[in-house]
């Protein structure tokens, strides 16, 4: 009896601690949602209101009306989708060669792929900016997407997965006259679906949240991505915090949906680097 009581007590204490910590972690997100429902006089008063008094989408309507948020969102989704597809194609092809083909200098080439992980994008950004300007690719989707279409991380991730597929399968298929490209398409890719999903979710999220590169190469209203567009909202005097926060919630919504529905793939992608390969 005593033991049982003690267990109930400790788990109650744990639940209270979990609750309090959860409230603190969620507080900034709650703030954004709360402010987005306040009207102009409420958001300007002191002390600040910590809970909304009514549910109103007026600030969302205003944010969408006064800034081309839908266009920004389209640009971001288009950029992220292009990068995702590009990375899936290039990483699949490269990982296939590294996993299934014995060729000279394979290890050297693999090291070159890994070396790209050590070079920060920010260290190469000046020549890349000048190159995109020279190609007149600023304010274009190719300028936003093509520089990110190859991935050392993704190649590594897929290679690790491909290595689990028995090599005899490959040798037998090739012996039977199956071209190696057909083997990749019909055997490897269907088997590798979980790894492909992981890379897809990971690269989409990374690109959707990009900031510095789109800031540099887009200045046209119609080509701004959503992260830049939302950050520029706050520079304009006519927008109050309630409108800005409505915009913030609007921008967060797609990634939250991705977070909830692809949680497993996302977490696998994020932890892939940490686990010994």
């Amino acid at each position: 009896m005593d033991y049982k009581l003690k267990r109930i007590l400790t788990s109650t204490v744990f639940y209270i601690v979990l609750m309090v910590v959860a409230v603190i972690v969620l507080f900034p997100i709650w703030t954004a949602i709360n402010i987005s429902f306040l009207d102009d006089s409420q958001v300007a008063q002191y002390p600040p209101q910590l809970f909304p008094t009514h549910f109103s989408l007026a600030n969302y309507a205003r944010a969408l009306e006064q800034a081309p948020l839908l266009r920004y969102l389209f640009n971001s989704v288009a950029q992220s989708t292009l990068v995702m597809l590009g990375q899936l194609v290039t990483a699949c092809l490269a990982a296939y060669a590294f996993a299934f083909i014995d060729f000279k200098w394979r290890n050297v080439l693999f090291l070159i792929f890994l070396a790209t992980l050590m070079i920060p994008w920010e260290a190469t950004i000046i020549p890349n900016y000048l190159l995109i300007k020279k190609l007149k690719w600023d304010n274009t989707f190719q300028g936003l997407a093509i520089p990110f279409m190859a991935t050392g991380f993704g190649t590594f991730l897929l290679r690790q997965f491909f290595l689990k597929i028995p090599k005899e399968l490959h040798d037998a298929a090739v012996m039977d006259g199956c071209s190696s490209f057909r083997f990749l398409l019909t055997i490897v890719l269907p088997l590798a679906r979980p790894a492909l999903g992981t890379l897809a979710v990971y690269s989409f999220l990374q690109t959707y949240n990009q900031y510095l590169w789109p800031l540099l190469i887009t200045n046209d209203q119609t080509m701004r991505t959503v992260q830049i567009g939302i950050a520029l909202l706050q520079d304009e005097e006519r927008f109050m915090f309630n409108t800005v926060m409505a915009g913030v919630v609007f921008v967060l919504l797609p990634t939250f949906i991705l977070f909830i529905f692809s949680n497993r793939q996302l977490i696998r992608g994020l932890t892939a680097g940490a686990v010994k390969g």
Partner: protein
Amino acid sequence: MAVSERISGSHTVGRFKSTGVRQREIKRFFTALLYLLPSLILFSTFTFIPLIRTIGLSTYLTNPLGIAVKFVGLAQYEKLFSTPVFVNSMQRSLLFVAYTVPTSIIVSLGLALLGNLRLKGISFFRMVFSVTIAVSAATASLIFKYLYHPALGSLNYLLSFLNIDPVPWLTNENTALMAVSLGTVWLQIGLNTVILLAAMQGISEELYESAMIDGANYWHKFRSITIPMLSSTFFFLIVVDMLAAFQAFTQIHVLTSGGPLDSTNVLVFSIYREFYFNGAYGFAAAQAVMLFLIMLALTVFQFGVLEKKVFYD
């Protein structure tokens, strides 16, 4: 080299390869190259050549369009260390690392320990603790901009209940970097918690069971099993978080634009300002080379230590 030689060595008889084998080897090489080509072209164009060009650019004076006009050797690097701009931003970046990296790892360890409890509904709390992986730096910064607002923000209001005087968060050069760091820590805990939780779940249950038989309490198990078993994960997080902190830009751009009085002008923001606004491409390139060297040192250090660990395992 040595390894690929060994692999192809299995096809050879004695010292000489037959022409058939050699031909097949060459064919295989070109097939593989074909698969690697898309990646190799992209890496060359947007990573390797730009890196070399950055190094080249750092030895030149440029015109405002970024075209190199006069070779100056290492003069830009001398300027780095003789003018306050780089010394200040280096110092700011190091402080930023010192503020954010230990804090976010310690907070995340707490969150991961809570998330690792065996309770009903714990997966909901795990989700909550990792929620910031879905939040972009830009949106997080906008939220903190509101929280820190001197007149309207709710943070000072909440602190007043704890009898804490209003903090001038972003408007004072002594607190601005800390305020930016606090937002960054919040943003970073999602990823750190996810990685720590994954590592904790990888610790073998038997270790805890045998410790329990030996009569170890929670604190003992934490100190002599959890922490040592997580050491390589901590190491990984320290390096990854340091790399992220050195690359920080978005928070600065949204929250402070490098101010007040350059107190948040960290390395990447300084690079951005020097080339994008001041047109000082050569000077910015020299700073970018320094950033690359820092990152390189950190990754080489990581590989070195990890390799040693693997060796001793």
